[in-house]
């Protein structure tokens, strides 16, 4: 049983540190009665507890609230057990007493289980695993996967990419500068008089291609003029541009 200790000159404190709460104290008191908790007298236990707390209060000790709550409940339990039974009240005082006893048994059982657990041969203290295991290695290798569809569609892709069958590039609505130079140059050779740039453009409907042909032909005219193969004439800014082969 914990003792009361003189702390300093005036205040005395119940050595509450020794108990982990009212249930712990109850269990300790019960075990002073009997080792087998199933045989303890609950009334006697209540007396012991109340006496203990009363004693502490008589000594003007600070007693924690939960100890007092337990004391009040036990006092109630005690009077219920002693007074004539009221069958209306559920649960009955006997059942409450039995439950209290079960709680004490349960706590006691876990306390003993903990002690037995801690007393076992323990890894790292009594039992040791291999000190320097070589370790196991996992070597990962790839299992390559591909389906027949992947294979033939890949071949289709490669073929489509490289086979000349598909004139996709020729369909692009663009006239290159080289084409325009060749075209304007050859057309100039067939003409004697001044001719508008527009008359050198191919007769196609695609406006995108017309735009490209116009731009390229204009550059071709400038390039041919630089080479001294053509003369250019324009009345004013944005007026039609005329070309004529240089003799």
């Amino acid at each position, binding site marked *: 049983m914990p003792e009361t200790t003189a702390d300093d000159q005036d205040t005395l404190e119940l050595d509450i540190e020794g108990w982990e709460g009212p249930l712990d104290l109850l269990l300790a008191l019960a075990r002073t009665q009997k080792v087998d908790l199933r045989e303890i007298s609950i009334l006697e236990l209540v007396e012991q507890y109340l006496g203990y707390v009363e004693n502490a209060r008589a000594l003007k000790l600070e007693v924690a609230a939960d100890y007092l*709550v337990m004391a009040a*409940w036990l006092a109630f339990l005690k009077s219920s057990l002693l007074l004539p039974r009221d069958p209306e009240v559920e649960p009955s005082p006997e059942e409450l007493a039995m439950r209290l006893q079960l709680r004490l048994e349960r706590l006691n059982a*876990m306390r003993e*289980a903990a002690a037995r657990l801690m007393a076992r*041969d323990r*890894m790292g203290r009594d039992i040791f*695993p*291999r000190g320097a295991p070589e370790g196991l290695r996992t070597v990962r290798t790839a299992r390559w996967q591909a389906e027949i569809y992947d294979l033939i569609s890949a071949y289709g892709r490669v073929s489509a990419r490289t086979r000349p069958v598909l004139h996709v590039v020729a369909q692009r609505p663009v006239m290159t500068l080289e084409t325009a130079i060749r075209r304007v140059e050859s057309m100039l050779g067939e003409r004697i008089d001044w001719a508008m740039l527009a008359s050198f453009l191919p007769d196609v409907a695609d406006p995108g291609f017309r735009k490209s042909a116009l731009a390229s032909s204009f550059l071709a005219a400038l390039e041919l003029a630089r080479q001294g193969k053509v003369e250019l004439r324009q009345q004013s800014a944005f007026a039609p541009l005329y070309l004529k082969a240089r003799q």
Partner: protein
Amino acid sequence: MTPPDETMRAVEALLFAAEAPMTIAEIRGHIGDADIRAALDALAEDYAPRGIHLVRRENRWHFETAGDLAHYLRRDREEPRKLSRAATETLAIIAYHEPVTRAEIESIRGVQISKGTLDVLMEAGWVRPAGRRELPGRPLQYATTPGFLDHFGLASRRDLPGIDDLRAAGLLDPVDLVMEQASMGSDDDEVESCNNNG
């Protein structure tokens, strides 16, 4: 003791070299199709009288030193962490009741558990969160780990000291929190702390 066959030798070498206990499936992954279980049983028998034992923990196997030789092997100053009484009791409650909520642990011990107690047990690798209880507030449950069995040299939870007797005595029945609260005044806080938990 018969001379070991190839499978026994391979299992022996494998468990010896392994850094952690292995399942039969893991062993088979290295050794291929063979009667691994028979080899393990034969090895366990071979090693029974020796200074090293082949031991099963749940479904994993490993070698470890024999318990009766502890006094030769104990390492100076290397005591495993000293646990508080609160921590050891909490560990026992979890092990014998798992999965168990914090409120149930507190109800059995009759006091709140301080914040650090469960942390210490989880840090030691003995306790893990084990899902939530389908109750109002969905409190977190706790259970033990394979590392717990390992550390305390238990083949499984059925091996816990006295667990059958305790169960037979009704001392491992589920904790009836509502009834406990009705019978003891101080339990309100515990329920509170359970709901705030996790």
